């Protein structure tokens, strides 16, 4: 357990090499569901980042206290508690965002990105590495969701962050804000992302 981790690499891997959405294709449910606008993507990304960070911290701290056979239920309870806390805090203090994301917040619980990081990283590494891992992965997720949301919003509604840049009556690709558009946009963005990142790495 004493292997030394390059923290810079540890942070960057979540954003580029192991980007949860474009490379590992994790957490597809919120990715496809909420990204009909850039703002929704950003909000969902930040909420997930927070839950991921908190659960990674807690799991990393108590990892030796959890018997192996019950580790998954234990992680799920921890994650679900933080999700519920996020939901209550959002409703109380940022009602605007709560209205937008309301039904998707409970879905963070089953976002396999969070459970995946708890299981494969935080339960095996120390606190600092886990925090940095969560920040990298979380930011990678925020970036991916915002990019996907922005693409769909630009093509589908002709606006970005709710600022319209075409006339009210202009025709847009409505397909892109409907569910099939999510799949199409995600596929093309993944191709572009991987093309660029592979070129950079080699």
């Amino acid at each position, binding site marked *: 357990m004493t292997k030394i981790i390059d923290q810079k690499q540890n942070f960057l891997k979540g954003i580029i090499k192991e980007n949860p959405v474009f490379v590992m294709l994790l957490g597809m449910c919120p990715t496809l569901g909420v990204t*009909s*606008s850039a703002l*929704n993507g950003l909000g969902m990304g930040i909420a997930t980042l927070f839950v991921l960070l908190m659960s990674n911290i807690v799991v990393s701290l108590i*990892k*030796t*206290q*959890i*018997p*192996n*056979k*019950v580790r998954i*239920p*234990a992680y799920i*309870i*921890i994650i*679900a*508690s933080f999700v*519920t*806390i996020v939901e*209550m*805090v959002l*409703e*109380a*203090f940022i*009602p605007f965002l709560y*209205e937008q994301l309301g*039904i998707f917040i409970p879905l963070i619980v089953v976002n396999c990105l969070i459970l995946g990081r708890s299981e494969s990283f935080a339960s095996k590494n120390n606190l600092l590495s886990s925090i940095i891992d969560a920040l990298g992965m979380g930011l990678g997720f925020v970036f991916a969701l915002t990019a996907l949301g922005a693409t769909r*919003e630009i093509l*589908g*509604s002709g*606006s970005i962050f709710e600022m319209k840049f075409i006339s*009210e009556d202009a025709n*847009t690709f*409505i397909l892109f*804000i*409907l569910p099939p558009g999510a799949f199409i946009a995600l596929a093309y963005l993944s191709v572009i992302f991987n093309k660029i990142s592979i070129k950079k790495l080699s």
Partner: protein
Amino acid sequence: MPKKESTFINMVLTLTIITIIAGFSLGFVDDLTKGPKAKARLERKINALQLVLPKFDNNPVTEKKLIKSDQVKDSIEIYTAFFNNEYVGSAIVSSSNNGFSGLIKIMVGFNPKGEIQNIVVLEQKETPGLGTKMKDEKFIQQFREKDPASFNLKVEKDGGDVDAITGATITSRAFGEATQLASDEFNKNK
């Protein structure tokens, strides 16, 4: 530190302790956010009331009337507004479950003549960029100063007078339905 072994007693103890801690922290946060949550909800309601009603000086929230209806799950809420003790209008919270993604909840303000003053959307889950256009001025303005007795609240496709949102006929239909329900309740409870 070595990992705890997966004996029966260890597993039961660990899960019990984790759930207890989780339960207590949730209770604590719930207590903490209860006040602000209620406040945020009330503020939203008062904002909506100010948007749909003419100027009023009473507190319609305290004079709320609830009416049960088989058409909607939640009861319909009626708020009456007075200015200098004179009746200036009512706001009715009504809803329809036939939106593209389920519930649409709106507040409709009527003046004493029974004309629609304004409509505010309170809750909706419609497709962003399509169904959500029902909040836009372009859609709402056609309802203003219309009396539902003479203005048919069905969409043009169904033989009504409502100019539906392009690509969101289902949303427009549900919106009209909720408005109709509000108008019916208004007339019943004058």
